[in-house]
């Protein structure tokens, strides 16, 4: 371990650099992070909170309801990952809603992609 000359001195959670990044984003560390993320999101679901990052109000509600899960989440993931996942939760929800709306209107979802066999 330790390609970086300095690391954090935290005893629990994954080893991180001073900047809050993973020292080693190995499979085990990733699994731990995903687990902490899922626990945090489950708590948000229970409390009916969607956005825990983009608005001041959302951040406060999330901190009050799921403060402990949030701390574990931060401990087990790189800080950039935490932000990414929190934002992704909102984006994924909006995407789901859009797809549902389009399908309810009878439209069809076609993912944009490069020309492949049969489509060109």
């Amino acid at each position, binding site marked *: 371990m330790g*390609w970086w000359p300095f690391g954090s001195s935290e005893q629990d959670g994954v080893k991180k650099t001073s900047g809050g*990044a993973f020292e080693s984003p*190995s499979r085990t560390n990733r699994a731990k992070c995903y687990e902490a993320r899922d626990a945090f999101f489950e708590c948000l679901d229970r409390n009916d909170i969607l956005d825990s990052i983009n608005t001041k109000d959302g951040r406060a509600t999330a901190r009050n309801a799921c403060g402990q899960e949030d701390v574990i989440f931060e401990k087990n993931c*790189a800080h950039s990952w935490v932000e990414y996942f929190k934002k992704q939760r909102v984006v994924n929800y909006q995407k789901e809603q859009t797809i549902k709306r389009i399908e309810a209107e009878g439209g069809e979802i076609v993912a944009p992609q490069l020309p492949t*066999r049969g489509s060109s």
Partner: protein
Amino acid sequence: MASPCNCIAGTVRSLRPMIAPRTEPIFLRFAARRTLVHSRASGTAMVARKLGSKAAVSVSRAKIQCLDSGSTAGGVWRGSRAFSFSAPRSKLKTIQQVWARNKGGPFNITAAVIFVGTAGALWAYFTYEKERMARKRIAEQTKGIGKPKVGGPFQLVDQDGLSFTSEDMKGKYSLVYFGFSHCPDICPDELDKMALMYEKVKEKCGDVLLPIMISCDPARDSPAVLKEYLQEFHPDIIGLTGDYEQIKETCKAYRVYFSTPPNVKLGQDYLVDHSIYFYLMDPEGDFVEAIGRNFTAEQAAKVISDHIKDWQGPLKKKDRWA
């Protein structure tokens, strides 16, 4: 139905005394082959149907005579019955029985099987050819004239610290993926998929594919980091890195969106946005096809294997270091 047949039967009957016994085997052979004739020319079914009944009448007459005379024609008769599954015609004594037997017309089980079989074979062949032409078109389309549109020369280092250039990709197909080890969720999933794809292609086509992962994050992804990182996905994946400018140029050549900050501090925490396509490159280093995230490992492996099978030129089966 009855009257034309009667006419024909009458004609045949009246002709019969004139036909010499020597000519009978010809009639017999004609009758035995008619199933084949019908199966090939279904468009002329009606004409053939009339001919068929005419022939059948002649046959029954001829057969009766064969039985009566016990001539050598009987041997020919047995020998040419290989295609028939119905009741032996020797049982048909009267013209009514012959009509009853031929009520179904020229369509029987043998004709149906041959027809469906031929149609199936033709369909399979044309489908295969159509797919092959489509693949060829994609491969040709993407093969730029002169300067390649995607891909190009680069000089980087692999996870063992050894130099790796675009020349090292030649002679084998390569599957190029851009990623970085600090990627939260998409790259690890895609690299797992890459390992599966690689295994499947190797199983089908042999060792003719190089799985390559080029880091978009040269500041953090040193050869040592890549070595440890990629080991968890597949030991055969070649991890490439370099300095900021080299990586930027390579990304540009492959038309990959590149957003890595140029001057990062040691230990800094950031994410890199990048394109998430697999680029399939042919043994001459030309771009063939991009494989997106919507492909499963199975589908992607099929696309790659099919392109490899289409390749006419030489393919290196040995390792590049061997």
